[in-house]
């Protein structure tokens, strides 16, 4: 899947590459669109969000999504593995309840509850996003591991694989596509939800959106939303690519 190995037509229609080009162009080129927004919204004094650079906001947004998703993968994946082991089976119901609650809780409420404890800034946002991403990761880890056929497990055990060998050589490779689908859902949700985190002082692409909504500046809202959307497309296409690599890796 190297870029060099692609035919020109394939290269031009690849979702990942197109998305990346659009994202970079939007992030770097937003200031040059100032005249356009000035024409579209002649009533606005400041048609371009300039309090923070879009490069900074995008990087912070990605960091917030990345760290919270990673935490959700480690926590949710680890917990999903634990409750499918013989020693952790009893906690399965509890874990699924907690993870479902984590998602039914509106992120805004989590943010509001976390602020008095942790203060303003990215920390309450990290907590809220991690909780929010937990459910799809947990659900898919459990479903993926449950889906490994019983005869495969029986023969793995019967041939003398230990618990770790069974998990890493058989169960996780076979469950990987399902787990990856859960991670993908979690990350995509977080790209959108991270925008809301700006209400508690985390610097994300939600900042121009919220400032724009408060100050009736539609241009700000559009500028933030465009980049969030491009980011979501890039990440979604990236997961497509990852799924292909993973399929090859698990057959290794």
């Amino acid at each position, binding site marked *: 899947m190297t870029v060099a190995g692609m035919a020109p037509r394939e290269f031009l229609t690849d979702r990942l590459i197109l998305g990346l080009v659009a994202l970079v162009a939007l992030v770097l080129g937003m200031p040059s669109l100032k005249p356009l927004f000035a024409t579209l919204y002649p009533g606005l004094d400041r048609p371009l969000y300039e309090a923070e650079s879009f490069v900074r906001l995008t990087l912070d947004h990605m960091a917030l999504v990345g760290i919270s998703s990673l935490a959700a993968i480690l926590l949710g994946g680890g917990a999903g593995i634990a409750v499918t082991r013989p020693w952790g089976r009893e906690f399965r119901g509890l874990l699924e309840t907690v993870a479902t609650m984590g998602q039914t809780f509106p992120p805004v409420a989590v943010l509001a509850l976390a602020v008095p404890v942790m203060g303003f800034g990215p920390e309450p946002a990290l907590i809220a996003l991690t909780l929010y991403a937990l459910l799809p990761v947990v659900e898919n880890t459990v479903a993926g591991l449950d889906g490994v056929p019983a*005869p495969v497990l*029986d023969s793995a*055990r*019967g*041939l*003398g*694989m230990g618990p770790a060998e069974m998990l890493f050589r058989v169960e996780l490779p076979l469950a990987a596509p399902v787990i990856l689908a859960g991670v993908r859902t979690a990350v995509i949700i977080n790209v959108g939800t991270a925008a809301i985190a700006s209400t508690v002082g985390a610097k994300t692409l939600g900042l121009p959106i919220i400032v724009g909504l408060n100050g009736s500046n539609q241009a700000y809202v559009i500028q933030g939303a465009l980049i969030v959307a491009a980011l979501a497309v890039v990440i979604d296409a990236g997961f497509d690519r990852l799924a292909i690599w993973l399929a090859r890796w698990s*057959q290794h």
Partner: protein
Amino acid sequence: MIEFERVTKRFGSWTAVDAVSFTVAEGEFRVLIGPSGSGKSTVLRMINRLIPADEGAIRIDGEDIASLKPEELRRRMGYVIQSVGLFPHWTVERNIATVPGLLGWPKARIRDRVTELLELLNLDPRRYRSAYPHQLSGGQQQRVGVARALAAEPRILLMDEPFSALDPITRASLQTELSAIHRRTGTTVVFVTHDMDEALRLGDSIAVMDHGRLIQCASPLDILTRPASPLVRDLVGREEWGLKRLAVETVGDRARRQESAAGEPLAAETPLHRALSEMVARGTERLPVVDGDGRPAGVLHLSDLVRPSTGGTA
């Protein structure tokens, strides 16, 4: 050698295996047979500790298996199940190499062993080595399953209804191959089935189980001619009893050694029911017999087939 000494296994209030004792000799092909729920699979799965025994002792070569690490115990045995259970994400080669890999064999030795096993199971290594399980037919998958079980040259092979899901032709050819492999390697085999014809065909000895108890453990001939209970008689069945009776002895057992006759000879290890079929097909009452090296080994007469032998009649 495998020894069971008053082994019991309960699942809740249900006694799956009830104080069972038996011995499987080194190199013996032992078939466990019985109706479903008789405890035969539970017995098999206790040998490699997939199911722990509640009471009694299981010993292998005199060593109590409870004192061994389960993984090490299992790597010393082959294990084949009805649903095959190949690893779907691995090639045929990697599947077969599972146990040698766990034992840390050098790569070159594993590769040679895989080639040897594919040839042993009549699978062309060039064609199948890199294939994935989903690309194989049911029969080919079970061939790989058997190869995987044999990979690390185990002294004991455990097989749980390995051929039950296959069509009759594939089943028959795998039975023949398994017999040949058993003769060649001298591996001790414990084979679970619910099919008496399969048991009579493969077993050196047959253990009949019912409701967790061992009803009878005897040679195929004795199972046919001296059934210990009505259940054993029912398992054998009345239909074609005579042919089953003939099938457990070979031409060599009944040929008249000093005589000679003309015609296409039969191998001494041919089962007697085939010899009968051959006589009907050729319209003759006498067939010449040759030994394993092709030397004349006497003549089989039609009357020899109905002669009451040591085994008696039903």
